[in-house]
């Protein structure tokens, strides 16, 4: 029996659209649910006071600070390494065994689950190097987690700089280094910054790697050797131990709003720079 193609298409379309609608609805529901339950818990006090009584009361200020510091540390380490790698791969060498090895390394690193990074960070930074549970250990571990993303996005950004720009710079008497720093990197900056911002978003939500390296102390961090708890770790502990549901929702809401803001910022930047340079 031959199925009428038009009927088949109508049927399949219905199925596909249903599945898609379910998907989108589920995903949207999650955000809406968390925000609805979490926003009521938000207040100026919530954001600016430290947790009290293991998190049952008070706010999440110390976790916000910890998250910012940890992420900033990770970016400070990973961005130079990542952009430098991308510059090397595109400007200073040609495709060959060396670049393949470097790329393979970055790809593999990208696929390693966060718990393994947590293990690694724990055994190397916390234990062997004696940094202890600290912002330092956490930042280093996070930095290596986001390194592949920064390498990939920076490489794409640098590759999309028109080759003529380089030729023009050379013909005006620029050295290779001047060409790279004055022409190529500035032109690639929007793409590079986007990659960095994406990595920030990822670091904020990271839990498994952080909990085993930065620890979970609730105090405000005083130095890079302090242990400290980030928002996502705080959320996890609140939720898992059932300490305070409203506060848990509140923390989750802050997390999601932050990530939403970061995504919006990324879109805004990309659009603005596309307009500027085309």
């Amino acid at each position, binding site marked *: 029996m031959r199925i009428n193609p038009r009927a*088949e298409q109508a049927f399949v379309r219905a199925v596909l659209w249903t*599945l898609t609608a379910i*998907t989108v609805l589920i995903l949207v529901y999650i*955000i809406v649910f968390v925000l609805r339950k979490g926003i009521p818990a938000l207040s100026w006090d919530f954001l600016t006071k430290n947790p009290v009584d293991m998190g049952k009361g008070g706010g999440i200020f110390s976790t916000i600070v910890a998250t910012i510091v940890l992420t900033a540390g990770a970016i400070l380490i990973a961005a130079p390494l990542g952009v430098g790698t991308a510059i090397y791969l595109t400007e200073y060498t040609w495709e060959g065994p060396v670049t393949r090895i470097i790329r*393979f390394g970055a790809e593999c690193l990208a696929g390693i*689950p966060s*718990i*393994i990074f947590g*293990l690694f960070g724990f055994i190397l930074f916390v234990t062997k190097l004696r940094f202890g549970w600290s912002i330092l250990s956490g930042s280093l571990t996070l930095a290596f987690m986001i390194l592949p993303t920064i390498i990939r996005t920076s490489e794409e950004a640098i590759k999309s700089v028109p080759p003529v720009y380089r030729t023009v710079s050379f013909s005006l008497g620029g050295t290779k280094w001047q060409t790279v720093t004055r022409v190529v990197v500035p032109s690639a900056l929007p793409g590079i910054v986007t990659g960095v911002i994406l990595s920030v978003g990822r670091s904020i939500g990271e839990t498994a790697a952080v909990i085993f390296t930065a620890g979970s102390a609730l105090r405000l961090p005083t130095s890079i050797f302090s242990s400290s708890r980030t928002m996502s770790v705080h959320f996890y502990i609140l939720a898992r131990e059932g300490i305070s549901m409203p506060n*848990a929702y509140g923390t989750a809401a802050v997390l999601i709003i932050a990530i939403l803001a970061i995504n919006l910022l990324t879109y805004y930047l990309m659009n603005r720079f596309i307009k500027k340079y085309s």
Partner: protein
Amino acid sequence: MDGTAKKRSGTRLERNDRLVRLALLVVAFSAVSVLLVITVFIVGQGTPIMFRYGLKSFLTGTRWYPSENLFGLWPMIVGSLYVTVGAMVLGVPFGLSCAIVLTEFSSKRLRSIIKPVIELLAGIPSVVYGFMGVVILVPFIRETFGGPGLSVLAAAIILGIMILPTIISISVDALQAVPPTYREGSIALGATKWQTVKMVLLPAARSGIIASIILGMGRAIGETMAVIMIAGNAAKVPGSLLDPVRTLTSNIALEMGYAAGEHRQALFATGVILFIIIMVLNTVANVTASRMKGAKK
């Protein structure tokens, strides 16, 4: 080329450039070095106990009682397998449907709304997904199907949802990479849109779609926090979908906080197994992805 051919000469500035090149080479190897160090450490900490204990009993032993020095990983291996397969069964059809709808059946405007939403959802922390599972899904399962609710089913569903953005975005890329001439040719022959998708586009984008599935699998296997919150974490081979389960990842995360001595080494050994599985998956994904890129040329 004659023997009188000359090469270009070096100048002071070129020597400086060579230094910069060397410095950048060192930097560029940072990713590789980190990978090596991670491998060395994890393997170094984990393999001795695997061989001391006996590789076979480590992998196939069904009892994991650290206090009695019993380290049988089989329940966790099975656990990871069940949960991952479950996640794929749920995530792939939904994800692929979404990808197809996004690229072939929706208007530009709709696409510009849905795509950012999906990208946003890729950024939601796994703990939030896990939390949603605990608060909504687990009670639902408990009431509707019985059992503790913390189960393989719960984990599979949540993981399936979590890998949707991965599968969708990579499959969308793969479908969009199919040259427009394929579509035009098929329509010109009188095929409907769906026939075009089924018989032309999906086969053409096959490598990319498979890569997305494998990457989704990798993400599902590596997921820790969400699974801990909803899977029950009983170190026993689950008998049904409704039984609690522990994965390789949760095994590590749950006990790392207080493990010492041999116990800790056993956890590292779990990490080694996990590491190997992920490496294999990643290599396969990369090979299929590069075949996709290669076929494009």
